[in-house]
C-alpha cells in the first residue's frame, strides 16, 4: 500500500510521523510505503511570527530542517505537486516525477492574498510572513506616535492573532514610552470584537481599559495608501499613520488550478476528513473548507484522527473514529498573561481568566512545538 502525504507543515508532519510509528512493522516488511512531498526543506513555526513583529524572536529561531523532524522510515522529497490526477490515483510534481498512491493525504496549508483588496499590499504592514514581520518590526521601532489601525481580512488563519497583536502592541508602545502619543484603532469584520462570543466579552473591557478604539462590522474594501485612508464595505473609513492588516487568505493555487476547490479550499467531510467524492483522499489543516479555525491546533487534532484511521485501514480494513471539530488555542493577553479556548462542533469555548502560568506554558510550547510535530507529545 502506498501512502502519499502532500505538504510538510504542521498537519502533514504530524500525520506522517504518527503513521510512521503506527505502521513501522508494515513499512519495514515493505507492505506499506510512506512518502512525503513538500514545497520546502525548512519547517517554520508560524506562531513565532507574532514575536518577530515585536523584536522578541529572530526569524532563524522559527525554522528547523524538515528532514530532521521526520521519522527515518518516511521517504521525503522537496518537490511540490503540480497536478493531482485523482481519478488515476497519482500526482505529478514540479520536477516531472509521477507518484502513485493508494491513499493520499493533502495538507498544503493556506497563503495570504493581500493583493485581492485594492491598495492593501501597498498600504498595509502585516506579520503573516517572515519578511513582512521583520519589516513591521522595523516600522514599529521607527514609530514615534500617531494613529495605528489594525484591520482584519476574511478568511484568515489563527483567528486569535488580531486580539493577541493588540495586547502585544499596547505593551510594546508602553515600553517605548510612546503609548500616550499613539491612538490604536481595532477593526473587526463582524458585529462584535471577536468571533468567539466569550473572547469578545472578555477582551472588550480589556481593550477599553487599554484605551483601544473598536469598530466592528468593518470589512476592508480598499486602502488609499497615498492619503492613508482605509475604507470598509460597510461604508466607513479610518485615517491612519501606520496600517496593520491580518490579510485575507486562500488555499494554495495548485488546489484551484486542479479544480479541487473554490478559493483553494477543498470540500471535506467534517467527520471523516475525506475529500467529498474521494474516500481515498484525506484532507486536513488550513486547506479544508471546514468551518473550523485555521490553526496549527486544528491541524494537529485532525492529523491524529487521519493517522489513526489510515493505520486502521491498513490493519483491519476500516477507519475507526471521527473528527469532532476539536481546537485548542492559546491566547496571549499582554502583561505576561495568557489564557486559552477549547471547543469542538458541539461544545462552545469556555474561557478561563488570563494568568501568568498560562503565559509561561505558551512560552514553553514555542519550543515544545518541535516535539509535538515529531509526534512525541
Amino acid at each position, binding site marked *: 500500500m502506498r501512502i502519499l502525504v502532500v505538504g510538510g507543515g504542521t498537519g502533514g508532519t504530524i500525520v506522517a510521523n504518527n503513521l510512521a510509528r503506527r505502521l513501522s512493522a508494515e513499512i519495514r516488511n515493505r507492505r506499506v510505503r510512506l512518502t512525503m512531498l513538500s514545497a520546502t526543506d525548512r519547517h517554520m513555526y508560524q506562531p513565532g511570527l507574532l514575536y518577530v513583529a515585536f523584536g522578541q524572536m529572530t526569524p532563524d529561531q522559527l525554522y528547523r530542517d524538515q528532514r530532521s523532524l521526520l521519522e527515518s522510515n518516511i521517504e521525503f522529497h522537496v518537490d511540490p505537486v503540480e497536478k493531482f490526477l485523482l481519478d488515476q490515483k497519482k500526482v505529478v510534481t514540479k520536477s516531472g516525477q509521477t507518484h502513485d498512491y493508494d491513499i493520499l493525504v493533502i495538507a498544503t496549508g493556506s497563503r495570504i492574498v493581500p493583493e*485581492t483588496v485594492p491598495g492593501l499590499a501597498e498600504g498595509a504592514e502585516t506579520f503573516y510572513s517572515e519578511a513582512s514581520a521583520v519589516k513591521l518590526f522595523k516600522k514599529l521601532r521607527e514609530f514615534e506616535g500617531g494613529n495605528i489601525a489594525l484591520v482584519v481580512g*476574511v*478568511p484568515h488563519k489563527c*483567528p486569535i492573532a488580531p486580539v493577541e497583536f493588540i495586547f502585544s502592541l499596547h505593551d510594546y508602545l508602553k515600553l517605548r514610552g510612546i503609548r500616550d502619543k499613539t491612538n490604536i484603532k481595532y477593526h473587526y*469584520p*463582524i*458585529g462584535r470584537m471577536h*468571533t*468567539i*462570543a466569550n473572547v469578545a466579552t472578555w477582551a472588550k473591557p480589556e481593550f477599553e481599559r487599554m484605551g483601544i478604539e473598536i469598530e466592528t*462590522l468593518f*470589512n476592508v474594501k480598499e486602502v488609499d495608501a497615498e492619503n492613508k485612508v482605509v475604507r470598509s*464595505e*460597510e*461604508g466607513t473609513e479610518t485615517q491612519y499613520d501606520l496600517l496593520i492588516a491580518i490579510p*485575507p487568505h486562500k488555499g494554495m493555487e495548485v488546489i484551484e488550478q486542479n479544480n479541487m476547490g*473554490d*478559493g483553494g479550499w477543498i470540500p471535506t467531510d*467534517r467527520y471523516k476528513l475525506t475529500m467529498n467524492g474521494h474516500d481515498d483522499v484525506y484532507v486536513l489543516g488550513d486547506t479544508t473548507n471546514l*468551518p*473550523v*479555525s*485555521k490553526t496549527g491546533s486544528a491541524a494537529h487534532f485532525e492529523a491524529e484522527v487521519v493517522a489513526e484511521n489510515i493505520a486502521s485501514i491498513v490493519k483491519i480494513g476500516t477507519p475507526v473514529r471521527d473528527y469532532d*471539530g476539536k*481546537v485548542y*488555542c492559546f491566547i496571549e493577553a499582554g502583561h505576561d498573561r495568557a489564557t486559552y*479556548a477549547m*471547543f*469542538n*462542533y*458541539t461544545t*462552545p*469555548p469556555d474561557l478561563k481568566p488570563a494568568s501568568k502560568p498560562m503565559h509561561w506554558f505558551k512560552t514553553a510550547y514555542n519550543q515544545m512545538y518541535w516535539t509535538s510535530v515529531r509526534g512525541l507529545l
Partner: protein
Amino acid sequence: MSTNKVIDARGSFCPGPLMELITYMKQASVGDTLELLSTDEGSAADVPEWVAKVGHEMLGSENVDGVWHLKIRKAK
C-alpha cells in the same frame, strides 16, 4: 449564470457562521444565492444586520429542527 451554494456552518464557534458567509460572499458572483446553515442562535440577528449594512439582499430565514437556514442574494 447565477448559482446556489449551501454553506454548512453548523457547530462552528470559530470562525463562526457570519465569517463563513463573508468568506463565501467574496467568492460568489452578483446574483448568486447563498444558504447559510447555522446552529448559532445569534445568526438570526447578526447575519441580517451585516447583510443590510453591506447592501446584499436577505431572501429568508427559518429555523428547521434547531438549524437556521438563512438565504442571501449577493447584490453587489
